[in-house]
């Protein structure tokens, strides 16, 4: 499984959406991605990539794309 597949799966599992829907997703685009959903998403990302994110990164992770940039800071390349 590539890191991109793994990363996408975190979104599809957390929010119950398809790969296609995950790709351009932003915070609050769907009901499932609210504050509660965000906490679940962060936990799932941290677990999937075995990292601990900083506060600023947690509140900055506002889209599928943005998450990739943020993960790069933790030496996780999504490809």
């Amino acid at each position, binding site marked *: 499984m590539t890191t991109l597949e793994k990363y996408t799966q975190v979104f599809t599992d*957390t*929010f*119950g959406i398809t790969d296609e829907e995950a790709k351009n997703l932003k*915070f609050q685009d769907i*009901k*499932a991605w*609210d*504050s*509660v*959903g*965000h*906490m*679940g998403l*962060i*936990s799932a990302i941290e677990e999937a990539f075995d990292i601990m994110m*900083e*506060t600023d990164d*947690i*509140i*900055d992770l*506002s889209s599928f794309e943005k998450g990739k940039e943020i993960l790069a800071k933790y030496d996780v390349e999504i490809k």
Partner: protein
Amino acid sequence: MRKAKKYWQSMMWKLNNFKNNTALITENGQKITYEELDKHCRSLTDTIGKRCLVFNLCRNEIGSLVGYIGFLNAGIVPVMLKADLDSELLQECIDTYKPDYLNLPSEMAEEFTDCKEVYKNLGYSLLKTQYDSAFELNDELALLLTTSGSTGSPKLVRQSYKNIEANTKSIVEYLNLDETERAITTLPMNYTYGISIINTHLWVGACLILTEKGLMQKDFWQQLKEHNATSFGGVPYTYEMLERLRFFRMDLPSLRYVTQAGGKLSPDLHEKFAKWALEKNKKFIVMYGQTEATARMSYLPAEKSLEKYGSMGIAIPGGKFSLIDVNGLEITTPETVGELVYEGDNVTLGYAQCGEDLKKGDERCGKLVTGDMAKFDKDGFFYIVGRKKRFLKIFGNRVNLDESERLIKSNFDNIDCACCGKDDSMCIFLTDSSYNERVLNFMTLKTGLNRAAFRIQDIDEIPKNEAGKTLYKALEQYYA
């Protein structure tokens, strides 16, 4: 003989006592003084011009707040509902209570084709419905709130002017609030805990920072810092989010205190936040309440927060707790579990389940049997240990488990189900796994709760006794 002035004819909030104070700061940074707030309120309620029932569809925005404050000050009775309530449930409430007007965000106005817009200000519209004082309103009735805001029962709690005033004064006293306070909104305006923060701050001439942004958004923290918020409130889930956000490491110099209610915080988190408060010279105040008691019934004084962690404290000023055993007799021995009973002027009038109920008077006479099981320690501090009725608190919202089952069964034919679980996590047992995704989506839609609140568990058969009653005890192994 002259007729005595009715309570609703005098104003609840004396906005003009604080003319030049800032009452509100909006999300775009606009500051509204008490004098301006008063003008907006009067201009809205003058359009209505009589005591009647109004639905206020709420967001943490100025238009909702002007509605709430204005209606109470003008003797108009608002039903507070969340603006994003499922449209079917909203329609059911409208059909049941037949309000004269709807106050809502203007962009929602066009959905109500049978209503006429009669006033527009601050991004909100006042719509006249086809109804005209369909039901008689009791003179004491001030405000109507939902008990759960979710499973679709249009059951409302009837709060009086005296209830709101009594509870507001108690909270102001024990939190020691004055006009230098600035609370930032973290709870919905249709939720009793959120309303109590609004009430107490406007009572003392303090400021509210209104935001629709949540803890998980950068903008929230920017607003908190830029406008020097002094406090906020949170339900247990809020505190779990704060811990995850590494809140304990944040530098928030303007923050004076944070409060917690809306369900029992885990003793572990209670202790952590009590320690944080002690180290950072802040206050952490755990409280307990119900919509049926206006908002608050107890608080744990900040200085006892660490020593008594896990406790919901003592009765608020003017209130009194007792515990009763199964025979209704008062328990006087510490560490003995009984049902919690509260007495005070904030105990609400009762429920409404239909329009005719709005003329009912006080059915509780100042005494509320809470349905919560509790004990007290040798120093008189109370601890919640369980509850009598089958409901869960999910993200601070009461969700009735029997109602949830009925909802599922009535919408899906040939399906057997059982709902139980723990706070913040409902476990839905289904006997046919082909329905799992549909039931999950349905419950998410109907309750408005995040799907993370529900866990679907497949089971061959729902365990039942000979009389056909579900044996919930036998299901505990799946989620305990």
